[in-house]
């Protein structure tokens, strides 16, 4: 474990992970430059070319991925959908990770009543079907994109809170956190400089697990008509409205579905690889 692994060349990144990284990069680029990349407006209708199949399946070069029931270009809608869905998924995952980790640390640090309160919140969150919470919030407060992202951010925070709390308590009771504490370090230093980097790998895995779930949840809510509202579009929204044409025009539904599958898979793969890479004991 000592000299040999130190001098050995750093391991190459596995091909699958490289592909996944490239895919995520592409998705991010598409999300960033969506307005420049889309060939048509997402509401621009071409009524004479309704339900045109994609190129290679009898379609024309004018609509690479075909058109939907109103003759809107599927590719353009897909590009804009990626932007909205990525925004929601990244935003929500970041909020969940930040919120959950903070609550977990607070519970581990103060114990007592604070901990009981956090645990109660965690249990409440875990026992309540999130879809119902989301439905009621959206029904009461209406729908806007920032609210929707914030709401999705409430999804999965309890996982981060549990992990952060458990690992912080363990480290505080014995081990490096206790050692640093008795060196005279402030709680801020203990939690930010020592605990957070040490449990980051676990939290990243949790985040990569909840990222696909947020995408799917967004899809589910949009499918029910409660997520992203037309004329705005998202991947889930496209799947939802495309299902009526599943037999006649499957490309409307398959294009966003395959993006969802590829992206969630890529995030999981990269997250798993990242976890190993961030651990200095696994070189």
């Amino acid at each position, binding site marked *: *474990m*000592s000299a040999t692994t*130190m001098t050995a060349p750093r391991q190459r990144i596995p091909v699958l992970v490289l592909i996944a990284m490239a895919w995520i990069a592409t998705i991010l680029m598409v999300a960033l430059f969506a307005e420049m990349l889309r060939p048509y407006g997402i509401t621009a209708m071409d009524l004479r070319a309704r339900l045109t199949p994609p190129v290679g399946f009898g379609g024309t070069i004018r609509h690479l991925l075909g058109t939907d029931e109103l003759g809107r270009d599927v590719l353009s809608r897909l590009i804009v959908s990626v932007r909205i869905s990525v925004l929601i998924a990244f935003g929500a995952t970041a909020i969940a990770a930040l919120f959950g980790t903070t609550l977990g640390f607070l519970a581990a640090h103060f114990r007592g009543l604070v901990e009981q309160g956090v645990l109660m919140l965690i249990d409440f969150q875990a026992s309540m079907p999130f879809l119902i919470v989301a439905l009621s919030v959206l029904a009461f407060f209406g729908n806007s994109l920032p609210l929707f992202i914030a709401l999705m951010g409430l999804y999965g925070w309890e996982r981060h809170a549990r992990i952060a709390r458990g690992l912080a308590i363990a480290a505080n009771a*014995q*081990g*490096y956190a*206790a*050692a*640093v504490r*008795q*060196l*005279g*370090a*402030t709680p801020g*230093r203990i939690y930010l400089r*020592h605990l957070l*980097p*040490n449990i980051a790998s676990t939290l990243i895995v949790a985040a990569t697990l909840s990222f696909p779930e947020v995408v799917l949840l967004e899809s589910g809510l949009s499918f029910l008509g409660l997520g992203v509202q037309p004329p705005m579009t998202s991947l889930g929204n496209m799947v939802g409205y495309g299902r009526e044409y599943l037999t006649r025009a499957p490309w409307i539904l398959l294009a966003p579905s395959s993006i969802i599958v590829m992206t969630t898979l890529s995030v999981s793969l990269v997250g798993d690889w990242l976890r190993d890479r961030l651990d*200095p*004991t696994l070189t």
Partner: protein
Amino acid sequence: MTPLLEMQGVSRVYRARRGLFGTGTPVRAVDHVSLQVAPGRTLGIVGESGCGKSTAGRLALGLERPDSGAVQFRGAPMAAPGTAAWRAERAQMQLVFQDPLGAMDRRLTIAQQVLEPLEIHGIGTAAERRERLATLLRDVGLRADLAERHPHQLSGGQRQRAVLARALATDPALLVCDEPVSALDVSIQAQIVNMLTDLQAARGIAMIFISHDLAVVRLISHEVAVMYLGRIVEQGEAEAVFAAPIHPYARALVSAVPVSGPRRLERIVLSGDPPNPAQRPPGCAFHPRCALALARCRTEDPDLVTQSDGRMVACHRAGELARAAA
């Protein structure tokens, strides 16, 4: 000499809850313990596991608050744990752990961790710290190139040296070593113990050395306290206690140390179960396992009484045992 650290009648009670709705049973982990350590001296604390020696160490460092009694460092009481004053005090007293790998942050290099106390207490400039790092590593016998390694890339002995370097970084006046060598190889144990003695001689550090290994304690301690079930049963000059222990429990412990050549003391094998601190026997806590117990020992708790040679023993028969041993 005035003691650097003084514990007066210190007790620490934990509550062990039994069952789902049971109320807690108080467990007196440390019970009316009084200790002093002078600068440049080492106090050894020995006893079975669960006798409260680690808790005594944590109380001495102010990592825990005693439920009764007082701990004084340089004549002043300790600040409450978690306060800014308490954090500032940490620069003067340090703990060395039993498990060096667990005590180090595996994501940081040795250099980062050894210098961390200086960063925390805001001591020195960057250049001074680099210099200090080199001195510290040399003092604990670590090669300079190991500074850039991570803890898992070191051997057990090297890790313990690194932990020690970190503990010494702020030049503490008091070092509490909680079983610092019990996880190490015997040959490395001797190196670390010798190093501790040298460092103490060079820097005049007061040490509390907690161990169940009597041979090691004898090697390093000036004074020794034998603990049983949270109390001190015998305390005195290390040589006197190890050469002629008075308390029957101390005798049994000392007689269990392997010696080369013919034994001077008869080997005493303790019978009975190791004690349960939640169910302390009435009278002298040691009487169920004591071969010399009298009827009085079952009802009356012996006090820690100073003997003619200055050592303190908590046994009803201390007088006659001391005469017999002499």
